């Protein structure tokens, strides 16, 4: 049990297929306690399936592991007591009030004095005055806060958040992340899936999954370093024309527009230099070496994974 003391999630070789289609392939990950672990990947990459396997909602076809020290195959009941799972779709009762929803959750987890616990949570969420409002009539941002409140009410040790901020405005998103950081500071482990790069950068560590395979994991700087991607930004001149000229040239693995500039990336530094050499002298263009952004890295990873699968 010593490992369980500092590792919240420890799974190896998780594989799951539906109707013969592999959705998650051989995913292994370790998440230390107290960490905010970002789970990134395109739509349909297997993020939700992986999260569901972690909390016992799906049984892996292959692979094994522990969540909070409990076996994910045989001890799902114990895991459920200590995990708060926030689904992608709002899954509290739309026709119950804020207070009734929270009290229901508190009672299911056997929280002592559920009424008081609900009141305390309402105050913490800043929902005072809306206790009796029907959950279905809350705005998207408030629904999200309420759902997070319902997950954290029973004092879980691990939060699994499945795209919690999809469709939420930037202000509400920031509040949401502040809350998550506060919870993590109190020792809670958080696994959060997202599409937003800025959110990925708020995580202590990230994992990137595409086509069901975990492609990379580590801190944001680790992931960028591991990518070994060499990047230039070009600005000035006819960016759009340049984009078409550079795309697909040998040595250039990716070109993407970022506002008035282009990111030009290549995995082989020499090949990249050779490829862009003719354009460097072109008038009006300003070439600068740059760090690849997280997005560059992910898009490159996805492209490479696609190559491997086709």
């Amino acid at each position: 049990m010593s490992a369980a003391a500092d590792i919240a999630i420890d799974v190896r070789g998780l594989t799951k297929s539906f109707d013969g289609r592999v959705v998650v392939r051989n995913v292994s990950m370790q998440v230390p306690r107290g960490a905010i672990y970002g789970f990134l990947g395109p739509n349909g990459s297997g993020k939700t399936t992986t999260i569901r396997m972690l909390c016992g909602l799906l049984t892996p076809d292959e692979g094994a592991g522990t969540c909070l020290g409990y076996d994910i195959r045989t001890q799902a009941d114990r895991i459920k007591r200590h995990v708060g799972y926030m689904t992608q779709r709002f899954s509290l009762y739309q026709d119950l009030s804020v207070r009734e929803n929270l009290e229901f959750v508190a009672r299911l987890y056997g929280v002592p004095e559920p009424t008081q616990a609900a009141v305390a949570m309402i105050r913490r969420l800043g929902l005072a005055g809306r206790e009796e409002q029907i959950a279905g009539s809350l705005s998207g941002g408030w629904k999200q806060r309420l759902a997070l409140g319902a997950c954290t009410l029973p004092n879980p040790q691990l939060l699994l958040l499945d795209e919690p901020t999809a469709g939420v405005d930037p202000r509400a998103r920031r509040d949401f992340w502040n809350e998550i950081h506060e919870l993590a500071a109190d020792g809670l482990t958080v696994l959060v899936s997202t599409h937003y790069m800025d959110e990925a950068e708020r995580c202590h560590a990230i994992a990137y999954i595409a086509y069901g395979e975990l492609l990379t994991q580590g801190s944001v700087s680790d992931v960028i370093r591991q990518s070994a991607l060499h990047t230039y930004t070009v600005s000035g001149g006819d960016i759009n024309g340049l984009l078409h000229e550079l795309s697909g040239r040998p040595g250039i693995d990716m070109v993407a527009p970022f506002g008035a500039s282009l990111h030009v990336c290549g995995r082989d530094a020499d090949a990249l230099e050779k490829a862009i050499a003719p354009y460097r002298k072109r008038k009006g263009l300003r070439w600068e070496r740059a760090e690849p952004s997280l997005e560059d890295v992910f898009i490159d990873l996805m492209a490479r994974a696609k190559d491997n699968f086709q």
Partner: protein
Amino acid sequence: MTPLARFIAPGFWLRTRAMLVKEFIQLRRDRVSFAMIVMIPLMQLVLFGYAINTTPRNLPTAVLMQENSDLGRSVLKAFENTRYFRMVAQVHDEEAFDRLLASGEVLFAIEIPRGFERAVRRGERPALLVAADATDPVASGTALGALSQIVQTALQNERALPDAGKPLFEIRQHARYNPAAVTAFNIVPGLVGTILTMTMLVFTALSVTREVERGTMESLLAMPITPLEIMLGKIVPYIIVGFLQAALIIATGMFLFAVPVLGSLWLLAALSTLFIAANLAIGYTFSTVAQNQLQAVQMTMMFFLPNILLSGFMFPFAGMPAWAQWIGECLPLTHYVRIVRAIMLKGSTLADVHYDALALAGLMLVAMAIAVSRFRRTLD
């Protein structure tokens, strides 16, 4: 512009056709609706065509022979020859005679009195008693109508009998429990069960599918609650609702139609609760099988139909062929209709209706066991 042209704007047929094609595609994907289109008419035809008989024959009959005589046997033979009566029990005292009728094991009981043969030979025109369970006037009515024919023909082949030009004996009819053959007395108790079946099934049939459709099931499954706890939590509130509904129907029946309640209201309440729970459990089972709320409602309809036709609520149970009776025995409504009629009209006790009470409990437990085992704890 003609009024028609105003409706048929350019592209009218194109858009109508697009909608039509889409509906066909969706219908083809919806297997349960498709099955309904085939199953409902087939079920109706088979049940109405083969199972239902409004002039039922071979009705179970008990015999109390107070004397062992040739004439008595001839009369009984005449009863059997009408094909309305089927002798299933021979009793030896009046207590057993009454008990068999009260428990519903037989619909008729015939008593051949002591000294019957001697009285006939002397031309005294003795009376024999035919007691009928008239809680269902349809079932007993036709058979009772055939009695006069028996009087005419029963002894016509016997020799050495006085020829008075008049019938040699008479039959005294005793339509018990509903002597005036008031239809409401028969319908109201049955309606209690029918209405409860319909409403209770729908309440729980939607309960699980609603959670699945609204996405709340995923959260619920991730929380520490077991399938049994979910089921009990969902069923119990509706037991109270169903109980109030039953009370309303029975009270209305008593006040508007003067339907008697001869037996114990407490017993009726207790067994009604059992019946309500059985239906809720069955509805809940549907909801664990159905993939959406529409399917759940369709399953409920499919189940409701045989309940109406084969339970003895609308058509005499005893008149159905054996296979239909077996199906009927598997439906909670069959047992409840018997129980309600027995308690309200006959004043039956638990001892009289214990078989049907046990059957209800059994059906409820089976439905609950299926529901709990069918309930998926994961999203696999």
